[in-house]
């Protein structure tokens, strides 16, 4: 502000906007917001400056939270369980402190992050109806979760600040209608005797169930309904806001800096992205060899088991299947030499010459043994994550790569699962439902949790692994690693495999995972 008077050049930004369509920004052009409440209704878009990195980073952090929230929902966690599960996640990615606990700079920054990341994702997820619906549902859940966490006074202040047209029922009016109010709202003896009134159109659900008193078009609602009303209002405004954003998206005045970020973000929503980290290998526990792959394949996720079976059946895999599988094997700690041996032996119908000329190079390239400087320095490609498998082009005839949960028809998928020994009826039904809702990675996690339910319980009960090690699995190599560790729980602990348990590895891994994002 002061700078503006001193340096007239900046005034250019503050010039009156002549285009009436842009007038919405006229008032708050490039202004930082003051956040007086912990919670935010996200009615005004942010107008302050933000770096591209922050723009993306904050978006990703929020995305993580939403993905975890969705995972809770799809596993039928109770509200209490969800709350417990989400608390560390929220603290890690999107801390929001109460006004009392931490005000000033840090608190404001947290709120700014919250505000900006919401609007970032709003842009990213407004493109299709499907994404909009999902985003609105999850945001509403997050909003509710936080609102419940808010302390009573702050919540009251926040709700009072909302642009909702409710009015507290005054003492006189209350006395006049007390019996009716009590009868209508099912207010019990020990309940709070306070009500507020709104237009009845705001609370159609309560009207429908006859749970409010109606007087000349006003609904008298008990305070206990207030929370759900706020949440309803939140989703309503968000949904209409998303519709609006969707309509404006094609005309976004954009210079190719935001586009890729937004695209990436909405892509990651298919399955949250998870980076691969070295520690997903079991190289430090036991050294996998070409000969041990057959034995280890029981711990593979379905996508890799499927490739392995196809390979054994046909003694061949097509290019993308080979690539996917090779990278996975690299990820579990199979050395280049062993990997070459593995493929050589597996392709037993192929002559040595042909193998050398057509296949060897690709394997070495994947490991970064050959190829350009960048490839070598990066030690080849990183193993594919679930997100990559779920978004790449689906396999055509003869190809077997990708995620079977996505590429197989439900009936074939169930057949495949049964053939690898998954036969629990309830589990298969759950998988069918997940797949029907396109929650492919949730289906995969469901199978995993069922297969290891015993040891998982033990791990949880004895608090052997940190919570981050029990997150939703988002990478085939994580799947393998956990599966392997859980199956060898006793051995690992007693040191038979020469390792000190998952602890150190786990934290390291999750830190690495977050870093790679």
């Amino acid at each position, binding site marked *: 502000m002061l700078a503006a008077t001193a340096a007239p050049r900046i005034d250019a930004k503050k010039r009156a906007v002549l285009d009436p369509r842009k*007038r919405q920004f006229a008032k708050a052009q490039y202004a930082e917001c003051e956040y007086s409440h912990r919670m935010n209704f996200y009615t005004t878009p942010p107008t302050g400056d933000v770096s591209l990195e922050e723009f993306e980073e904050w978006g990703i952090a929020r995305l993580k939270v939403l993905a975890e929230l969705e995972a809770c929902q799809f596993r039928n966690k109770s509200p209490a369980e969800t709350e417990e599960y989400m608390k560390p996640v929220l603290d890690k990615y999107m801390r929001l402190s109460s006004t009392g606990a931490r005000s000033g700079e840090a608190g404001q920054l947290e709120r700014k992050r919250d505000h900006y990341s919401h609007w970032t994702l709003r842009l990213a997820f407004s493109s299709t109806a499907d994404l909009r619906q999902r985003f609105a549902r999850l945001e509403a859940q997050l909003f509710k979760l936080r609102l419940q966490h808010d302390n009573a006074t702050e919540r009251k202040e926040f709700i009072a600040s909302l642009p909702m047209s409710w009015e507290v029922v005054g003492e006189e009016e209350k006395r006049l209608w007390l019996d009716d109010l009590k*009868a209508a709202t099912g207010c019990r003896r020990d309940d709070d005797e306070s009500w507020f009134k709104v237009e009845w*159109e705001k609370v*159609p659900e309560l*009207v*429908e*169930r*006859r749970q409010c008193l109606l*007087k*000349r078009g006003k609904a008298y609602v008990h305070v206990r309904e207030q929370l759900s009303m706020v949440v309803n209002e939140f989703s309503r405004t968000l949904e209409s806001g998303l519709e609006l954003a969707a309509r404006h998206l094609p005309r976004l005045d954009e210079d190719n800096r935001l586009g890729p970020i937004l695209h990436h973000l909405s892509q990651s929503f298919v399955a949250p992205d998870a980076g691969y980290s070295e520690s997903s290998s079991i190289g430090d526990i036991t050294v996998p060899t070409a000969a041990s792959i057959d034995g280890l394949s029981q711990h593979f996720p379905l996508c890799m088991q499927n490739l392995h079976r196809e390979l054994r059946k046909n003694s061949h895999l097509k290019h993308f299947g080979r690539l996917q599988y090779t990278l996975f094997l690299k990820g579990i700690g199979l050395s280049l030499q062993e990997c070459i041996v593995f493929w050589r032996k597996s392709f037993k119908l192929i002559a040595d010459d042909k193998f050398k000329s057509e296949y060897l190079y690709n394997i070495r390239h994947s490991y970064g043994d050959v190829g350009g400087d960048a490839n070598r320095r990066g030690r080849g490609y990183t193993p594919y994550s679930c997100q990559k498998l779920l978004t790449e082009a689906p396999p055509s005839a003869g190809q077997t790569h990708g995620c079977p949960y996505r590429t197989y028809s439900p009936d074939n998928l169930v057949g495949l699962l049964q053939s690898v020994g998954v036969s629990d009826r309830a589990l298969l039904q759950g998988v069918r439902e997940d797949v029907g809702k396109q929650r492919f990675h949730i289906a995969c996690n469901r199978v995993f949790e069922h297969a290891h339910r015993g040891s998982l319980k033990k791990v949880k009960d004895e608090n052997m692994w940190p919570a981050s090690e029990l997150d939703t699995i988002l990478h085939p190599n994580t799947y393998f690693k956990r599966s392997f560790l859980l199956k060898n729980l006793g051995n690992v602990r007693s040191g038979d495999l020469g390792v000190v348990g998952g602890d150190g590895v786990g934290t390291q891994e999750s830190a690495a995972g977050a870093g790679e994002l």
Partner: protein
Amino acid sequence: MEDSDMTDAPAAPLGNEEEEQVTDLPTPQDATAGASTKLEDMFGDDSDDDDDEFSSSAPARPAASSQPDPQSAPAPSKPRYAEPDTLRQFYSRLFPFRPLFQWLNHSPTPQPDFQNREFAFVLPGGAYIRYQSFASADLFRKQCIQMTPERFEIGPQYSINPRDRKTLRKASAFRPVMKELVFDIDMTDYDPIRTCCSGAAICPKCWQFITMAIKVVDAALREDFGFQHILWVYSGRRGAHAWISDKRAREMDDTKRRALANYLVLVSGNEQGKKTGIKRPLHPHIDRSLKILNPYFQTDVLADQDPWHSAERAEKLLALLPDKTLTTALQKKWDSSPNRSSNQKWSDIDTVAEAGNLSATFTAKQLVEAKQDIRLEYTYPRLDAEVSKKLNHLLKSPFVVHPGTGRVCVPIDTRSLEDFDPFSVPTVTQLLQEIDAWDAEHVGMTEEDRAKVQDWQRTSLKPYVEYFRGYVAGLLKAESAAGKRGREEEGVAGSESMEF
């Protein structure tokens, strides 16, 4: 020939109407002449209005063309009031098009409220033609006179003119935006509890059920929802419709309509003895309704309907009482002295209960509640709620002739609701005779004086039309006042809200 005439009639676009006005305005035509002009129109249409050329998805067409037999068959056995000639007379001389237009338009000058509103015609042959719309009251009148629909129904105002719906690239752009909130109460829903008649028949005894229903629903709409412009209309045979024209009611979406309908629905007609699980303490709306209904329960239900007189009917009552000890005691008592009236049986419940025939777990309070439930079951309005829940539901217009009875669907004045007698509602044939009778009576009048008295004023339709005009005048007044206020507010808020 008559066939094609009906199926193609909806194609008549607004654009052609001016031409028509010149060609066939005042000449009263007989049926064939009318049909031939329509054919001309139809051929004229196809040149400039090609929306029928590609798609045949309009609901009216397949429905009309799939059943050509009933169209030609029933013609000879038609009652007089359904004859095109009678209907043409009715539409041209008696039907109050102007107030109806104002009622639907909410303003004296045509606006989208009326112009984009769907009308559906049911033609004498049984053809059902949807998506008609009219630019003005006169054009609407003309088409009615020309097509002589047996009845027509009123639908919502659409986002665009319903006649242009097929010119849209996106089908989703054609959606209903506004309609009066409507209710339908039909006597058939009362069949499980009325003893006097069943099905389509009614008598003064069971009309009382409709009276009760109107009172309860009207009270709830006014007191709870604050609606003021409620028009009750006799449906022509055995029920009543309500049209609520408050702006707030008209603009409700389906969610709100459903919520409101379910707020009012307590007992449904189909499943007898269906326990709705009425919560205690009673919701103030139920409580008020019960207070309104109590006197009717004594006189109209217990005395007039006598619903539990015979032994097997009394079983229904016993089934509604939840206490086994009480029901066996009552059963015994009624077995030993049959022929007790419903009134006696109703008071027997209390006497037997007081004599100690109650289970230990069943309190006197529960008995009071059970009796309340029974009273509600036998008196509470039974709404055909589906009609109210959808914005795009069509409902028969007021003042049309009921094709089965010939009675005009007149509005019911709720101030003298008890005096409304469905059997004294004039039929269309009666009304036409009344005009003739009036003419004969006033032979001595000069032509000039005679012209001052319009046709409808010469008949017993007069009080109903006058009531309707008064009602519509009130609506328009409120509407223009609200419109002014709304515009002022918009002027203030407009600067910000227009941004998006």
